[in-house]
């Protein structure tokens, strides 16, 4: 998925910086090094910020556009950082017929973001996911590792409110 505008400032910790520099040093001069570089970047930073891709471009002597082109081709890459809480709404068949779509829509409206996006304060990321294997609890959502099942739109909104009230 491509990005139109840059919404998030790039923040990195010293350990992230060091870990990634090490990765790049190992990949320098390696044929086909750009794919592992992108994967490592995503693993370390959670997404692909332009600042990191520019570093790859310089170090591996690959045009920035080539990296971006590759990253937009494969769905494993994202250009949006993950929020503190990732809300994943299951849109598998069972959840979907039991009204998961309404829950997802409601979250999107409340958080003012579309599925796949992160709120500007980086608190929430909203995702729609395929079957998570808990059809007995349909419709089901997860917030990070926490599972919430047998939801209705109203119950779903309540779950969101508890997280909105947390730090």
């Amino acid at each position, binding site marked *: *998925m*491509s*990005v*139109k505008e*840059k919404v998030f400032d790039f923040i990195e910790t010293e350990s992230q910086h060091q870990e990634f520099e090490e990765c790049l040093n190992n990949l320098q001069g390696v044929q086909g090094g750009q794919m592992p570089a992108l994967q490592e970047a995503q693993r370390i930073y959670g997404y692909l910020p*332009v600042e990191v*891709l*520019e570093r790859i*471009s*310089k170090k591996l002597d690959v*045009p*920035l*556009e*080539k*990296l*971006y*082109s590759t990253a*937009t*081709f494969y769905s494993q890459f994202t*250009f949006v950082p993950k929020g503190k809480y990732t809300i994943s709404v299951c849109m598998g068949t069972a959840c979907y017929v039991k009204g998961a779509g309404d829950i997802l829509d409601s979250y999107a409206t409340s958080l003012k973001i579309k599925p796949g996006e992160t709120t500007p304060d980086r608190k929430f990321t909203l995702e729609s996911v395929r079957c998570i294997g808990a059809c007995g609890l349909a419709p089901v959502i997860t917030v990070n590792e926490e599972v919430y099942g047998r939801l209705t739109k109203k119950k779903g909104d309540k779950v969101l409110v508890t997280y909105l009230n947390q730090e």
Partner: protein
Amino acid sequence: MKEIMITINGKVCTAPEGSTILEAARINNIEIPTLCFLKEINEIGACRMCVVEVKGMKNLITACVYPIREGMEITTNSKKVFKSRKINLELILSTHERKCLSCIRSGNCELQMLCKEFSVDDEDYYNGENLQYDFDDTSVHMYRNDNKCILCKRCVAACSVWQDIGVVGPNDRGFKTHIGSAYEKSLGEVACISCGQCIVVCPTGAIAEKDQTKEVWAALDDPTKHVIVQTAPSTRVTLGEAFNIPIGTNVEGKMVAALRRIGFDKVFDTNVAADFTIMEEANEFIERVQNNGPLPMFTSCSPGWIKYCESYHPELIPNLSSCKSPQQMFGALAKTWYAEKMGIHPKDIFVVGVMPCTAKKFEVTREDEAAAGYSDCDVALTTREVARMIEKAGIRFNDLPDEQFDNPFGEATGAGYIFGATGGVMEAALRTASETLAGHPIDSIDFKEVRGMEGIKEASYEINGTKVKVAAVSGIANAKKIIEKIQSGEEFYHFVEVMGCPGGCINGGGQPVQPASVRNFVDLKTKRAAALYEADKNRGLRKSNDSPIVKLVYKEFLGKPGSEKAHSVLHTSFTKRSEF
């Protein structure tokens, strides 16, 4: 190479082993349509316009990438082939913005030509969901309209293979695939060098130069303006192509006549300015050799190369010759010496360049290029735009008489002419530098080692006892190679000529567009360059330092080459730019 027997459309014929079906058919006078194929740089078999039937094979074969083999039976004109090509075209057209009437490429659009051949109408049979892309006109020299893009990726190949820059590429996947830059930045925001090589290979109107003919018509309409035009060396050997004159014909006389009939107050020759460039550049070179550098000295006439250097190799800025390009030197002299001579205020002089180049549009906007306090040059038109002006003015180009340039900037030496081909600037500079160093006229002025269309040419010359190693490179991919060699210490050169476009200006991004069916089979560069060397050979004066107008302007106005005055008028400075 060994010839092998094949059968095309029932006729037995031969072709060299190793050829593709496309090449073998062409040798035997059968043209197979293509859209994505560009020889050597974009052999991807993606558009499937070139499909043919091969006996024994179940599916249709893409002729552009499939090699022939002994006894192969090929059919290029069966019902099955035609049907497949037609459906392909209809599908391509279904996502193409069909605003063809006044499209810049209407009449020489490869998609349009094929639609005509295959009777594909602007029908809505395949109409469905369509993505709308923003029209990108953020860069100085060109626009991009992805709604007209057919995803042939020829522009991507030109940018990444010829130029090794790669600021454009395919983003996203599937139906959403579109050509763009990293992080969807616009062309004005990325480190595009403005060379225009993408434009000359685009089959449609998805990318093209920014048309500035309106500005020129407006100036011509303004009675307070003294509108003068200058024509770059290579444009005279390419402009004819826009009027179906054979490739490599020198149409200098008709070009001058046409520009005069359009209404320019004076029609001058950039070649004369090129002679000035040589005076300054040769002098700068001698100074650098005598004062220990910085060496190598790189030429600075190609604005695409300059922008590349500023963006990607700013550490080489001290090595660039500080000379303005001939276009800018012309403007500078027009608005200073000429303005004074004519008694016209420089603000009332409107200088138009006829250029083989889209980066010249960028060059016009550069800082530190305003000798008289006003932009040296006002508008740089590409050869294509001038051809459109000539058409619009209703001038029957092919029937025009040959006319002469106006004076004082009308009589150039042969050295000015060869600026338009790779190696030409080097040769012109060597002619003048060797004579200056020798201190007397010299006879051997042909430096043939730096001629020709190879991407990298090297030579060593002994000039007045000093051994000088030179290189002439064209195309940024080759420039990159030579920079690596220099920076790794593998090679040392005194003087390096770099032209941003492969082959130099004769193959510039502003030249008439030749369809892939010509590009893939005709050596455009050699044919166009030959016309320039022919013109050089036939000039009475062939060294810039022999030019009477050069002598006069130095005597009256500039003093000596490299003087303070010459520096303030004819030299410029360069700035570091962002690489991303």
